[in-house]
């Protein structure tokens, strides 16, 4: 039992650490080089930036995100301290698009929704980097994901989304996908496009 007491100094440091907690990085690309080249074949590179809601506007910005999303951000996994990774796609020195991913709670586990847009925020590609569903194949099929191409933030705000649920028994995952994509495009707009 004495051994346990020997680590008391570590416990003290640990408490100090926990009192100033920031969150670990949200959703970043597993292999940005491959994804950027696949989605933007004409690209020559990309630049990564990490942004949090806290540093770009704090509580006011969080409320704006929630108003547009028409839902509360989850306090543990979607709090203001989560750093989002934005990938600005380059051709030479010029920007030609953006890629950004978000985590979203699904029916069986977390999903990672990756969205690519042009410079005006219009979706040019969408795919799941991770999809925890027995019907993952139906969701990840290009027949489903391609239905979101061409959509903008306005379409999500006005509800002009006409994609059909591809699953037989996972409507929760379909609704989670819609929420995750809407959150993604709102964050892209408020954290990146509106800041430029």
């Amino acid at each position, binding site marked *: 039992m004495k051994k346990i007491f*020997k680590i008391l100094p570590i416990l003290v440091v640990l408490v100090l650490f*926990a009192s100033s907690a920031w969150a670990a990085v949200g959703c970043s690309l597993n292999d940005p*080089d*491959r994804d950027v080249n696949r989605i933007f074949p004409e690209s020559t590179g990309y630049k990564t930036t990490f942004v949090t809601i806290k540093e770009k506007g704090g509580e006011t910005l969080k409320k704006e995100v929630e108003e547009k999303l028409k839902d509360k951000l989850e306090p*543990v996994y979607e709090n203001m301290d989560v750093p989002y990774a934005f990938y600005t796609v380059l051709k030479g020195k010029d920007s030609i698009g953006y890629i950004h991913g978000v985590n979203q709670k699904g029916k069986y586990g977390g999903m990672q929704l990756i969205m690519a847009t042009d410079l005006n925020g219009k979706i040019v590609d969408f795919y799941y980097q991770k999809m*925890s569903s*027995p019907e993952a194949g139906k969701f990840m099929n290009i027949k489903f994901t391609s239905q979101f191409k061409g959509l903008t933030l306005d379409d999500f705000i006005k509800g002009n989304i006409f994609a059909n649920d591809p699953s037989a028994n996972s409507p929760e995952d379909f609704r989670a996908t819609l929420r995750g994509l809407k959150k993604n495009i709102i964050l892209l707009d408020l954290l990146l496009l509106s800041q430029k």
Partner: protein
Amino acid sequence: MHPKLLIVLALITLFPVSWALADSEGFFYKEANLIAGYSSRDGWIDKNGMMNSSVGFELYRKFSGDYGDFLIADLQMRVAYDSSKNSHQAWGVEIHNAWLEYKFSQYLKIRGGHFAPSFGLEPVVDTHSTLLQTLAEQDIGFNKDWGVQMRGSFPRFDYEASMQIGSGMSVRRQDGSYLATLRIGTPKDRNLQGGFSLLSGRTLETEGMSTFPRNELLSSDAVNKNRIGLDGQYLYGPFLFKGEFAYGRDDKNDVLGYLTEIVYTLPSHQNIEFELQYKSWISNIHVSSSDEPALTLGTTYRLSQSTKLSAAFSHDFGMMDKKPEDRFVVQFYFLGG
């Protein structure tokens, strides 16, 4: 000062210097890892396998110019305490990740420093904070080593090839030690992933995770190792299945190891996971009772994105002169800004 120590210090110094000089993005995270438990063999313990209670940090930066990102740096260090050692040897600095990676293209990146060998599951799963580990500790003897690596990604597969010094945590090279590894695998964004690995080397046997002071060298002779390996992962609904297999030779002994693991995420409370792992290492397949199997049941509860509580019960079936062991450990882990 010892030249090898100088190289390590120079590498570590590069991180803050390059951070100050170049356009960069990234994060600095503090880490705390507290482990306590009970073992039927050792009584009260404050470690789990090779993992000691510790505090540390991670510094991760991406450097970019006008034409985009070109360099990544990662430095992950811990100050660890091992109460089973005397007071002079109990404290140690562990350098886990310490690497710089320069990108030439999607197809070729060069990495230098301390990183996982290109073999088995270890390079594709993050075991830095987990109680359940891969086969690497039994198979290679360590899960990080010093050296250089080339890697890249193609539309249908990834590759990485590493040349390292065969010493693990500490910087030492003797008896011609080296470690050459190669892994070719499917992209990491698929629900079904697989990999094929090869290994050839002469590795040093050490005990402990300390980089400074150097961990204990168990033998001055390096072990000749050759391996072929297969690994895979499959995500299906709330289940994640993992498997790993390795076969080869240690000096004149034919060796074989395998691991199977199921991770279950509770759908109603997705911050709770249960893990069941069975792994076995056979140090000579021609000798009976050279099998070293272990069964582990674990659970993890995430309090936030930064903090988690884990617990694991493991039964080591024992081998030859070693008695079976039951062990229960709990872990508090924090990684955040």
